[in-house]
């Protein structure tokens, strides 16, 4: 019963959300599996190393970053899909809190990028709150371009740096 209510709520909130997103729905289906599939093998390795984790399977989803387009803080269809799965895990683990870190690539300038990272973290938070996650469980922080995961200067690297990172506390 409770679960049904959640699914209903998710449908009511998410579908209009998707409609407001940058691209059409068709693109959503095309785009979503790619980055997620790419990320998963790498993340699993990390999880294996931290074997005794209590939320082993679901925490994989929390370790996945979501990615943004250059100078944008709007959630891509892939990011929204990923956040849906994060919301699911957060509902199942209702005693956890999460810090959402917003990051940028180094192509811009660091003042503006700190503000952009703030917006990136806030847009993920707002999406999760829309899915019923209590805002008191979600804090945000922007690092702008100060903490890149990749230090080279080419597109693949910039793409990896334009991200939200989720830290389960």
């Amino acid at each position, binding site marked *: 019963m409770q679960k049904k209510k959640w699914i209903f709520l998710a449908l009511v909130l998410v579908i209009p959300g998707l409609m407001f997103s940058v691209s059409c729905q068709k693109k959503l289906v095309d785009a979503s599996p790619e980055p997620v599939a790419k990320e998963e093998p790498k993340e699993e390795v990390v999880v294996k190393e931290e074997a005794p984790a209590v939320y082993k399977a679901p925490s994989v989803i929390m370790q996945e970053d979501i990615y943004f387009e250059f*100078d944008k803080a709007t959630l891509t269809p892939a990011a929204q899909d990923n956040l849906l799965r994060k919301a699911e895990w957060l509902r199942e683990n209702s005693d956890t809190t999460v810090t959402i870190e917003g990051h940028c690539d180094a*192509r*811009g*300038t*660091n*003042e*503006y990028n*700190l*503000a*952009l990272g*703030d*917006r990136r973290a*806030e847009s993920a938070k707002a999406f999760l709150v829309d899915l019923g996650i209590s805002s008191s469980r979600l804090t*945000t*922080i*922007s*690092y702008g371009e*100060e903490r890149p995961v990749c230090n080279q200067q080419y597109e693949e690297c910039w793409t990896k740096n334009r991200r939200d990172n989720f830290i389960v506390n």
Partner: protein
Amino acid sequence: MNVRWLRCVVLFIAANLLIGAVVCFAQSDKDQYEYIDISNPFLRKIPLAVPLFKMFKNKNGTGEEKRLSVSSADLLAASLEFTGYFKLIDRGAFLFDPQKDGVLTPQINFANWTVIGAELLITGLFKEAGDNITMELRLFDTFKARRIVGKKYTGKKADQRRMIHRFCSEVIKYLTGKPGVFGSKIAFVSTGSGNKEIYSCAFDGYNPKQVTRNHSISLFPAWSSDRRYLAYTSYKKGKPDLFIKNLAEVQETTIANKGLNITPAWVPGKFELAATLSFSGDQEIYLLTGSGKIIKRLTNIRGIDVSPTWSPDGKKFAFVSNRAGSPQVYVQDLASGKVRRLTYEGNYNTQPNWSPQGDKIAYASVVDGRRNIIVMGFDGRGLLQLTHESGDNEAPAWSPDGSLIAFSSNREGPFRIYVMTAFGTDQRRLLAVTGEQTNPKWSMNDFNN
């Protein structure tokens, strides 16, 4: 009456004890500023000769005295060359031994200088006495065979730089009407210690010093007009907060609203600053007191508003906003709140810095995927790109007299601080220290601290 006189005398002596001009030779006020073309002062550099100083009473000088005398003449030449106004004539090109001439107008054969093209000549007399050094410095117009500035300085050996730079100020003030940059400092961010910390150095890169030891990310240094305070952003308490450091004391004020507390900019001449805060959920610019209390919210529109920079009268500020979809420079009137967009070329224009003369705004623009520095009029007209095909160039910061711009560039690999003239000429590295250097900010000109 007597007491007042006494007070005057005491003040006079005290002023002289601190170093400074003891003797001012008579000088003509006529023909001021005829030497440097204000519209583009760097178009034609004035040929200047700075021969080694002579010793008082024509003696040869001890080893230490000789060394100090040479380093003083070299520093004088280098400091004036730093302005970009002069072409220093190599001492090897002198056609005679200047040590044989005197330092006063009648003792100088000006034809020896005009024949090698020197239009200006600076002579020096030098003396060491115990801990003190004395210098008599004179600037001559060689074609008019006339002295135009003459000063005598006495002070401690440790004040050598200050004495030389006071004379440089006199020279530049005579030639341009403004005292120049010789009493200014540059603050910047460096990763030299392993973390981004705030540093500062003299205008010419001399004596870089670490100002913060936060062992965290520290960014965006901003000098107050009186140079007593340095505002900056640091993550030392776990998130981007603002700190206002009293440079004379250890004391620091923290401004830690929820979310961002970034990009401080002091209101000229006031203990107030603008900064971007995001506690409302939106990144907006606020006016704060120097102790961190919010006076009022300055911007109020959905989207990013960041990087305020004040007009010198404190009545307007330029800033970056993405309200039209991409980051662009806007200007807002403080009293009326009226906003005008200034930049239309390109889709990434950030880091505005308003010149202390008020007429120009420098900013960093992404041109063909690289960041470059552009200067425009305060009305958004007359764009002039100053950096070309030399890596990324960002964070322009005007010198207090508006003649130079410090900026950060990765043209030689790591990001370092560079300086160029306001017209983009004479681009050179300011200093060589370990790590990467970014976010330079130039202080006001002041010899007193």
